């Protein structure tokens, strides 16, 4: 069975991709990718005390969420949300692990409540004053396709728009040896029951392995290889081109999400 949802807003932030409008020429192949490292912006939506407590993964998530919501024209506080991230805020986890193994063993209460995987969702709710339901998902290397599937299913089942945010930052040393990644990346899509300004997606689950992720130009393929959230890039390229497209993204080693884009 295929779920069909509209795309009404897009946000993106990655090396050389500073927002959807700025990224368009790069995604369309009209400008080169300058994949320089960047610092996720401080979330001005949050009060200063809360803002200081946010780490890079949360900041990345809030930035793309705000961009996609603004682009959709829908009130951000009325959007149900799905946040998906393989690593959450790994800087916090690593700093707690360090503290647990330090002689005094004391960990900070703020760090602990920031260690929950739904920290980004929690700060988003505070930032926009939202009481709407929110889920936070993992997904390891398959986190983008998993988040997109769940968000689209929710739009189809509820008939309400869903803001889907997928964000990941590299894990600090020494855990990076076990979970190697390069470059921060986040993408947000406002999915709607009806076709949106960016067209519509048909989504279907298939119990078949994806032997190869969809082709990308070299520099974008390198971004994708470094960050599981950047597995969104083939879809973003297709959305930027405003051309019909069919893509298959891996949902696990033995499963795929089949995506049909009708611009």
């Amino acid at each position, binding site marked *: 069975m295929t779920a069909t949802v509209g795309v009404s807003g897009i946000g993106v932030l990655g090396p050389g991709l500073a927002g959807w409008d700025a990224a368009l020429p790069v995604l369309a192949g009209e400008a080169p990718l300058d994949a320089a490292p960047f610092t996720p912006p401080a979330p001005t939506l949050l009060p200063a005390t809360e803002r200081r407590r946010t780490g890079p993964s949360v900041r990345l998530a809030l930035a793309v969420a705000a961009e996609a919501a603004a682009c959709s024209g829908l009130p951000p506080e009325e959007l149900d949300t799905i946040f998906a991230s393989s690593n959450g805020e790994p800087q916090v986890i690593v700093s707690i692990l360090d503290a*647990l193994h330090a002689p005094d063993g004391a960990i900070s209460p703020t760090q602990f409540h920031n260690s929950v995987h739904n*920290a980004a*969702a929690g700060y988003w709710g505070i930032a926009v004053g939202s*009481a709407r339901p*929110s889920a936070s998902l993992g997904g390891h290397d398959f986190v983008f396709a998993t988040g997109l599937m769940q968000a689209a*299913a929710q739009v189809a*089942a509820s008939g309400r728009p869903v803001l889907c945010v997928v964000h990941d930052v590299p894990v600090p040393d*020494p855990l990076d040896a076990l979970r190697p990644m390069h470059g921060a990346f986040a993408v947000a899509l406002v999915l709607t029951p009806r076709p949106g300004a960016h067209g519509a997606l048909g989504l279907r689950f298939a119990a078949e392995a994806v032997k190869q992720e969809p082709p990308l130009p070299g520099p974008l393929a390198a971004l994708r290889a470094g960050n599981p959230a950047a597995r969104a890039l083939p879809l973003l390229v297709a959305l930027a081109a405003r051309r019909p497209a069919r893509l298959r993204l891996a949902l696990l080693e033995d499963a795929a999400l089949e995506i049909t884009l009708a611009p």
Partner: protein
Amino acid sequence: MTRMLPLRVSAFTATSAMGVGLAATRAALAARRSGLAPCDLPDMPQGIWIGRVREAEAVELPAPLAAFACRNNRLAELALRQDGFMEAVAAAAARHGAARIAVVLGTSTSGIAETERAWSRRGADGALPAYDYARTHDLHALPRYVRARLGLSGPCVSVSTACTSGARSFLDAATLIAAGFADAAVVGGADTLCRLTLHGFGSLELLAKGPTRPCAEDRDGISIGEAAAFALLERAGPGDSGALGLLGAGASSDGHHMSSPHPDGHGAVSAMRAALDSAGLAPETVGYVNMHGTGTRANDAMEDRAIARVFGCAVPCSSTKGWTGHALGASGALEAAISALCIEDGLIPGCLGLERPDPAFVSGIAVANAAAPLAHALSNSFGFGGSNCALVIGRLP
């Protein structure tokens, strides 16, 4: 809120400190026997009680899945072996096809204990010894393990919304079924004792000195426990009237603070109302509310007021965390299973360890077990990040 398609709970199982499997869980509930004990795990905060499942510690995973070995997946494996759960899933796979059954599971910390162990064995250069991060620590390790163990090939989702994860898995699986991505789903969760969680709650000064006593006037905090609980959900058919089902589910966000609930419980109220609306049920049809009831001063007071706003003062409610401790990301799944047992047995379990509820409370807190025919129960879960989720479990119409 959209009406939810009612789902049959075709099978369920629970393993926690109060018992391995449903028979032991039932016996402990009826005998009011807590599974909590003084903490005897190394490197944990001093003077606390925990809900430890010792039986899980020696469990071996099947050889082809040995790479998944960690405390969390061992507990999941132990739970899967109980109550004919694996056989029920195999039968469902034969009916629907293995690719039509989703696995949607909640966890807050998955197998992070493996990383904690590795951290204490870092080399002189600070490097970690090799271990399988993806199949242990990573959040997806839990549903991947369970899916592989059950021979399923449908959608696989890991939910991690702190202490609502287990409950939220029911809602997200119901969504996948309603949208046609699956015909059935294995839902629930597993969370296990680890240093990050115990020291984390310790840093917030939220750990009880003895066994947790939710709803007591002098309650002093949480006892952390570990648990795994699973359910098999399928679309309810015309022949399922009277069978156990997931009738409704609702969620909300506080949008207030990262670790403190809104004092007036707005988020809790809207999650409970959304769950009732999605079930198409009026509050007075609910015979028992299984509280989140962590035993902290703030949570229990907030939840008491929220329940009274939705249900008035008459509906009996209690927290079963005095038996199990707070199983965090598994608590919603565990308490959905306990609520299902209460429906089957016609039991309202009273909170453990207190003779009377906090006199400031206004809802119908039960402190002794009582027999009562129950058609519907509502189970609450609330978590950090302002996450709220309520499930309605009961007899299918």
